[in-house]
């Protein structure tokens, strides 16, 4: 027998957390532009610029579509990224993350990407096709070191569930304090740079080469949806990193402190994802862009070699 009241509360919480995720994503867009501007010795836009941009895109008077496959992009990208967010433990709150694991999250992240790719391909613009090609190749490049580190963590913690990994890092026993996973965090942070599509790995977007790549034909509400996807993507990817290495931002246990713990954990989680994003921004602000094969070689040569060393470390360390 399903408890309908509980279910309703859960759905409401899920909606609230999703809305919060989107709000934080938009805020991050503003923060990112502000920080980059300060590094460039500019004033930069106001911190709430992300909200204005998205609202503006949704208030555009006319929108164009290249057909029903083109619309997949707007639908799948927002839906997929929100779904992925629901499967992540956020500040120790496990919404659906008990129902899936890291493999599910990695594959759920492909739903928005594939929807986006379908829409971009359906637009028929060659720039979009080239951009998608680059995006997929960047994905192939950064996934190898990332999965190496994640698999090392799975074997170390003997679980594949992200919620359990977060649980096992409670009481400030964060993975990053273990030497091998400190190196792992560095490797994963490089991969995160590619995941966030920040320089030097902003190859798929590359506005000066291929006219912003896959987004070339999107305008108005379609672009608004894609902006939401991109902004939420920042939150999802940094949260994944924080959950893996920084204990998901859990500092107080809920059973001991009650609602205060939720509040503090959320604030710590926010500061941590901001910090992780901040590192990515610093790298972004000062680097030029790689070519695609350079990115592939970077990840598969240098990053992956460190990843293999971590795997060997774990392989030798874990005995049955």
């Amino acid at each position, binding site marked *: 027998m399903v408890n309908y009241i509980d279910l309703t509360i859960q*759905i409401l919480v899920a909606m609230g957390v999703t809305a919060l995720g989107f709000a934080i994503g938009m805020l991050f867009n503003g923060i990112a532009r502000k920080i980059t501007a300060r590094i460039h010795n500019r004033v930069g836009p106001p911190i709430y610029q992300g909200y204005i941009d998205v609202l503006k895109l949704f208030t555009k008077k*006319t*929108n*164009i*579509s*290249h*057909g029903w*496959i083109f*619309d997949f992009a707007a639908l*799948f990208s*927002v*839906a*997929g990224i*929100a*779904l992925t967010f*629901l*499967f992540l433990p956020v500040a120790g709150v496990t919404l*659906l993350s*008990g*129902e*899936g*694991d890291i*493999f*599910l999250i990695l*594959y*759920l992240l*492909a739903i928005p990407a*594939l929807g986006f790719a*379908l829409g971009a*391909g*359906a*637009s*028929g613009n*060659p720039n979009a*096709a*080239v951009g998608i*090609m680059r995006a*997929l*190749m960047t*994905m*192939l490049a950064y*996934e*190898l070191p990332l*999965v*190496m580190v994640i*698999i090392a963590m799975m074997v170390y913690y*003997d679980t*594949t*569930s992200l919620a359990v990994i977060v649980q096992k890092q409670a009481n400030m026993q964060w993975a990053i304090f273990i030497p091998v996973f400190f190196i792992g965090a560095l490797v994963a942070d490089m991969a995160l740079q590619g995941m966030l599509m920040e320089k030097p790995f902003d190859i798929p977007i590359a506005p000066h080469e291929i*006219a912003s790549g896959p987004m*070339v034909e999107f305008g108005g*509400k379609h672009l608004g*949806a894609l902006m939401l996807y991109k902004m939420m993507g920042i939150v999802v990817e940094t949260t994944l990193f924080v959950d893996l290495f920084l204990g998901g931002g859990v500092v107080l246990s809920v059973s001991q402190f009650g609602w205060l713990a939720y509040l503090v954990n959320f604030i710590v989680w926010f500061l941590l994802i901001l910090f992780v994003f901040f590192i990515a921004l610093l790298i972004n602000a000062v680097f030029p862009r790689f070519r695609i094969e350079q990115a*592939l*070689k970077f990840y598969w040569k240098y990053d992956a070699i460190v*990843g293999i060393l971590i*795997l060997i470390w774990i*392989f030798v360390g*874990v005995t*049955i």
Partner: protein
Amino acid sequence: MITLTIAIFLLGIIIVGLLNRYPKAAGVIAFFVSLIPFFALLSWSSVMNISLPSYLHFLNFETSWQYNLGPGTLILQITPLGWFFLLLLSSLFPMVILFSISFFRSNAGGFYAAMLLTMLGSFGILLAQDMLTFYIFWEIMSWSILALVIRGGDRKAIVSYLSFGALSAMLILFGFMLLYFKTGTYVFAEMHLDASNLVLAAISLIVSGFAVKGALMPMHVWAPHVYSKSEEPFVAFLSGGLSKLGYFGIMLFMYGVVGFSLLSSWGTFRGVPLFGYTLAVVGAFTAFAGTVLAVMQDDLRKLLAYSSIGQLGYITIGLGIGTPLAITGALFQALNHTFFKAVLFLAAGAVYYRTGKYKISELGGLGYKMPFTFLATLFSIFALAAIPITSGFAAKWLLYEAAIEKKFLFVTPIMLIAGVGAFLYAYKILYGVFLGEPRYDVKEAPLSQLVPMWILVLPLIIFLIFPGWFVDLTAPILQGYGMTAIPHTPFMINTSLAKYNTLAVIFGFIGTLLFAFILYKSKPQERVEHLDNYLAGEPPELYNYNIAMHASSKYYEPFDEVFYPYFKKGAERMWEIILAAGEVFGSGARKIYTGIVGDYSIYILLFFLIMVGWWLLW
């Protein structure tokens, strides 16, 4: 009843063979004959502890059948494993035949005859209970495949299939001989094996023989040639159905005949038999290399062929690991691969039927012209790329979980990367064929081609929602090996590491999709032409609306540049070197044929001495 089935099959083969001039009539007859294995399957459902309503098994097949053949007895009997693989083949086969009815415009009687013979062979293989029966039906299947390959008419395909088929048959036969030498019986159930090296040699030979049919690297060389040069419905059946027979054989002999405990007695590593460990590593390599090679292809069928090799590699990994979790994953992957790869090959056939092209760089923009073909392809591609909105994900997930559970630290990243590589070639198919610039003004594929495709998509959706039903199917198979099925409910699979709840994914996705849909519907939109594109301001009317906008030629050029040097000297080169060495050896060996009777008698004597000595020393 089985006698009757075989008789009907043989009769059907003769009739459709004679109806070569009337392809439609031959197709319809072949379709009705092809349904029989499926009815047999339904009537045998009690083997899997499934109770179907009586109107679903109105034909009553006996569960075992024997025929005395002089040296041995042919024994056919339904087993849970056979039932499972028969499910794949017998549900795929009628759909393929149905597709062919409109696909062939002329001269198809031989095709249907050979297809029916192939199915008859497969039917026998899946039911066989002794090595003799198994081998006889295996040869029937192999030779009728050869007939179908010859219909394709490509010399390289025929030669490579013939040589690798012969190699496969030799390896299997030699393995059977060793087993018979060891046990003195043909019947699987009566074999009592021990942990001797002879058995290890036999099982290694048998597994490598089946690996040829399963297109495991480096035995895969024939597959791309045959897949890319034969007729589409046959390739769909070959890749989707017949390649599974290789894995059926591996499973039968590794876990049915030899058994997990005996495998472990030849050495284990972290709880996994070394034999299985080797197989898993080979499988992972196959998955990765097949994927990389698939990304490099331009021919749609070659791409799908290499993709098949890569996806079948996952099954090998699962069979190698050998835990209940891994075997469930491998069987699930086999089921998914049967259906999605068949749909992809059939869709390629439908595209060819309408456009006459197989090269990805020459196609484009068919998504709006053939929407139902596109959607069927899209669904299969979701399954191929293991996107969690089809059942493809559950299979891969089980395999990943199995690998992590047994701490396969170096195999799992390769599996995951091969999974990401699948996105690359999957998108190449989608973009190159269905998206982008509309180049052809064609109609949707005919209904008799769409219906099979969509029926084959159905299992992918059913097992997405109810992965637990699939685990139920595997329970009797695992029971036979002394294992228990993994814990599950209809919507959920539990492992020792995590759980996977499809309801959460589905309802979460529906909910978020609803949210996205509201956002998307917030503003009206207008449709624009495909040429109304941002091309740095170039107005299309300047070029008579004739701008080439499809970027699918050499789509992954940077990828090719990076990987090509490592894959330049492929497996084909390896076999060429082996052949060259064999030729040198052969020309040396020819010198012993002196033509003098005395010499020959000395050879015979030497041979006997060696054989007897070997037997004594063993």
